[in-house]
C-alpha cells in the first residue's frame, strides 16, 4: 500500500518535471482527534523549490497537515521528515530550530492584535536575530514593501482589510528568510481581485526567495496559478496527485466532481 503511494508520488513529481532533493517527506501519516480520523495514511514528498497545492473538501485535514509539519499538532503514527530531520519526538529546542526555517501564513493571518503592522513583522526578527533597531526597521520596511504594505507600518491589524492582513502575514512569514513556506488558505474569504493579487504576490515571493512551498487551498484557480503539483485529499487520504492539468483531466469520479465545480 505504502509502496504504491510512494510510487504515485514519484510519478506525480516526474509529471511535474521536478528532480530536486525532497525537502518535506510525509510517510503513512495518521492523525485522529478522539474517534475522528483526520489523516489516514498520507504520504507526500515535496522537492526543493517546488510548490505543492493541497486541495480537498472542508474537514479533510488539510490545515492539520500543515500544523503537523510545523509541530503545532503531533502525528499519531507515520513519519514526517523536514530537510532530512524526523520531527516526531523532536525536542522543543530542535523543533524551534526547524521552525525558524519555515514560514507559516495562517488562514486568517493571525496577526498579533496588540501590535502594529510593523511590530508584527518585526516580532520574529526581535526574537531570533541580533539585528540593531535601525537594521531591523530597514528589514521590516523591505518586507512590507515586498507585499505592498509599506505605508501601513504603524496601523493596527484591526484597521486593515482581510487581504491586507494576509499580505502582512506573508511578510511576517518571510521575515527570517525561510526555506519552506506553508500557506493555509491564502485566498480564503477574499474577493477575486484581491485573491489574484495574493496569488501573484505568492508567485513573485516564491521566485524571489527560492522557496519550497506547501499551499493548502480550496481555490482551484489559485492552485493552478501558484502550484507545480497538486495533491487532492479526501477522507484523510491522498486521492490523486500530479500536475493541475493531470488532475483536471482525471476520470476519477471524486476528482472530476471536485475540479468541475468551478469550470
Amino acid at each position, binding site marked *: 500500500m505504502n509502496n504504491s503511494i510512494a510510487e504515485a508520488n514519484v510519478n506525480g513529481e516526474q509529471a511535474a518535471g521536478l528532480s530536486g532533493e525532497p525537502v518535506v517527506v510525509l510517510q503513512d501519516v495518521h492523525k485522529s482527534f478522539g474517534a475522528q480520523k483526520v489523516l489516514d495514511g498520507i504520504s507526500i514528498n515535496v522537492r526543493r523549490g517546488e510548490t505543492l497545492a493541497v486541495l480537498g473538501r472542508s474537514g479533510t485535514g488539510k490545515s492539520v497537515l500543515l500544523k503537523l509539519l510545523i509541530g503545532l499538532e503531533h502525528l499519531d503514527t507515520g513519519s514526517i521528515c523536514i530537510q532530512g530531520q524526523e520531527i516526531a519526538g523532536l525536542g522543543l529546542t530542535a523543533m524551534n530550530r526547524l521552525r525558524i526555517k519555515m514560514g507559516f501564513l495562517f488562514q486568517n493571518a*493571525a496577526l498579533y492584535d496588540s501590535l502594529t503592522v510593523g511590530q508584527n513583522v518585526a516580532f520574529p526578527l526581535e526574537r531570533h536575530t541580533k539585528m540593531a533597531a535601525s537594521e531591523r526597521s530597514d528589514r521590516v520596511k523591505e518586507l512590507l514593501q515586498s507585499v505592498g504594505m509599506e505605508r501601513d507600518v504603524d496601523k493596527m491589524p484591526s484597521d486593515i482589510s482581510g487581504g491586507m492582513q494576509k499580505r502582512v502575514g506573508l511578510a511576517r512569514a518571510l521575515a527570517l528568510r525561510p526555506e519552506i513556506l506553508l500557506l493555509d488558505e491564502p485566498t480564503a474569504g477574499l474577493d477575486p481581485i484581491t485573491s489574484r493579487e495574493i496569488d501573484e504576490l505568492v508567485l513573485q515571493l516564491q521566485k524571489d526567495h527560492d522557496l519550497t512551498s506547501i499551499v493548502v487551498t480550496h481555490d482551484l484557480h489559485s492552485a493552478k496559478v501558484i502550484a507545480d503539483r497538486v495533491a487532492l485529499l479526501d477522507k484523510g487520504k491522498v486521492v490523486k496527485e500530479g500536475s493541475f492539468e493531470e488532475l483536471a483531466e482525471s476520470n476519477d469520479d471524486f476528482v472530476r466532481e471536485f475540479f468541475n465545480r468551478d469550470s
Partner: protein
Amino acid sequence: MESTSPSTGTMINRSLEWFGDLGSFSWKVICASFTRPFEIREIVRQFDEIGSKSLPLVALAGAAIGTVLALESRSSLARFGAKSMLPAAIVYSILHEMGPIVTGLVVSGRVGAGIGAELGSMKVTEQIDAIEASAVNPYKLLAFTRILACIVVLPLLTLVTDFCGVCAGWVATALADPISFHRFIHKGFSGVSFSDFLAPTFRTSAFGLIIGLVACFQGMRTRGGTEGVGRSATSSVVLASLFVILADVILVKLILIFFP
C-alpha cells in the same frame, strides 16, 4: 436516582481531567521559566497591566472595607463597652484578613477576566499558534510573564488596600467620634506585631499564583470562537475566586500554626 450517577461520574472525570491538564500546563510553564530569554520587557508590561491598572480598584475596595468596618464595629464594640478598641479592631481586621482577601478577590475579578479573555481571544484567532510557529514558547511569553506579575504584584496591591482601608477607617471613626490620625494609628498598631502584617500580606502571593495560573490555563485552552472566549473569561473569574477563597482558608490555618 440511577440517572444521576453517570453524570456525577462524568463530573468527577471532568474535574480529574481538568486538574491533570492544569498540572501538565503548570509543568510546561515551570520548564519554560528556566529557559532564555527571560522576557523582561513583557514582565514589566504585565506589572503595569496587572499592577498599576488594578491600583484604583483595590484602593477603592480598601477604602470601602475600612469605612464599613468602622461603621459596623463601632456599634458592636460600644455594646460591650470596648469602643476604645475600635482602631485596633479595624487595623487588625484589615491587615490580617480583609485586606488580603479583598485584594485577592478584586484582582481575580479584574485580572482573571482580562487574562482569560485576552488569551482566549488569542487562542481562537490562532495568535498563540502563530507565536509557537515563530519558534517562541507561548508558555513563557504569555503564561509565565503574567503569572510572575500576579505573584509579585498581589502583595504590593495588598499594601495599597491596607493603607486605604486604615485611612478610610480613621475618617469614618473620626467623623463619628473625633480622633487624630496619629492617635488612631498609635492605638490601632499597638497590639499588632510585624508577623501579623508580614504573613497575611505575603500569602497574597499564593493568591497571585492561583489567579495567574488559572486564568492563563483557562485562556490558553479556549475552544469555540467568541462564545468560547466568553466562557473562558467567566470560568477564569469563577475558578480563580473559588480557589483564592479555598487557599485563604488553608493559608490562614497554616499561618496560625507557624505564626501563633
